């Protein structure tokens, strides 16, 4: 998955030392809450789009809420996502692509 973050896959921090397989790829996370967030994000995007895989993901924002752009082939999916303190999704909104 092509991503705009080089640190933790969801928050870009370089603290922590958690490496986990997500979607067949070994990814770095700063903590287990971020890992949960990322897994929930991926599952939700796949469910909303029907895609079998996310090829690229761009994230902007912070713990208050994130705006993301996901891509699979030519298809694009834009959304806003926010999590609770345990890493579960508490808000999700599709945004217009453009």
């Amino acid at each position, binding site marked *: 998955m092509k991503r705009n973050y080089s*640190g933790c896959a969801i*928050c*870009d*921090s*370089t*603290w*922590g*030392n*958690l490496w986990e397989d997500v979607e067949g790829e070994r990814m770095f*996370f*700063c*903590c*287990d*809450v*971020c890992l949960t967030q990322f897994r929930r994000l991926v599952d939700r995007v796949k469910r909303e789009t029907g895609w079998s895989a996310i090829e690229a993901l761009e994230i902007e924002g*912070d*713990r*208050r*809420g994130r705006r993301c752009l996901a891509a699979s082939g030519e298809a694009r999916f834009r959304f806003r996502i*926010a999590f*609770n*303190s*345990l890493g*579960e999704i*508490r*808000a999700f909104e599709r945004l217009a692509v453009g």
Partner: protein
Amino acid sequence: MTQCPACRLPLGEGDYLALAIHLVDRADASDSPHVRWLNQNLARQRTDPADLVGGLRKVYDLGSGTIKDWIKSKFISKFFGANPHPFVVALQHPSRSTLLGYVVEHQHFLRQWVRSCSFIMARTDQPSVVLYELDNLNTEFGGFGPSRVSHYELLLRMGESLDLARSQVLATPPLPATRAALEEWNEIATREHWVAVLAAMHSLELIANRNLVDVGASVRYFDPAILRGSEITDASKNFLREGYEADVGHSDEALALVAQFGTRPDLLEEVQSTFLRSIDLFDDYLLARLERATQFEA
């Protein structure tokens, strides 16, 4: 002594190097509360402990102000900064679901509140603190007879005015995120010095302190215009107005007690660390209110 602001581990007084070593050590183990604290308070890029000492000293430094000023400024930057807490944003002009999320989670918060404040009373040797807590607990939970009911009762009435029966509110368990925060507040209340508990709990009443806008808050807890007009139910106005009027006094008075009894240098750092942990828990808890609110969205 100082304490870790993420897990309250006791460390030597003023020993910021030991604290930095501990924080980095726990962060290297990917421990979420420590990583979070570092990310939000010091740096998002991993560095060595020695590079964090200056930053830690700065976090704890009261500068030319008092502990009251320090607590207020930390609280403001966390909840009322340029990017205010999402619950505060939602409460400016609240929807029915936001208010119901507030009702359902907050009844649990208030019940823990009674426990936490009771521990302060049980452990303090200061009559002025006991009197303060008695008054606070009556305002929040006990009430002063039918003409002046408690904040807890006003909360339940707000729920009823929005068609949520109190029996249903009382029968709903807290969300896991709320439960986790309440459990840790309970642990703080039973284990930490009573002055630290006083600071940890009553600083949270700053959330409704309308005077924070005079010292740098970007917004109030809610737009006071909603107390006029017909945007929200009368019972909701009564609930919000009560906090709006009581919590200026509650938070300012408690912080004055913290300043009076908590300035011994060894105790001061304990007060600061316990407060820092408590506002992280409060951040989590306020999000849980929003999480609950989504269940009431059509």
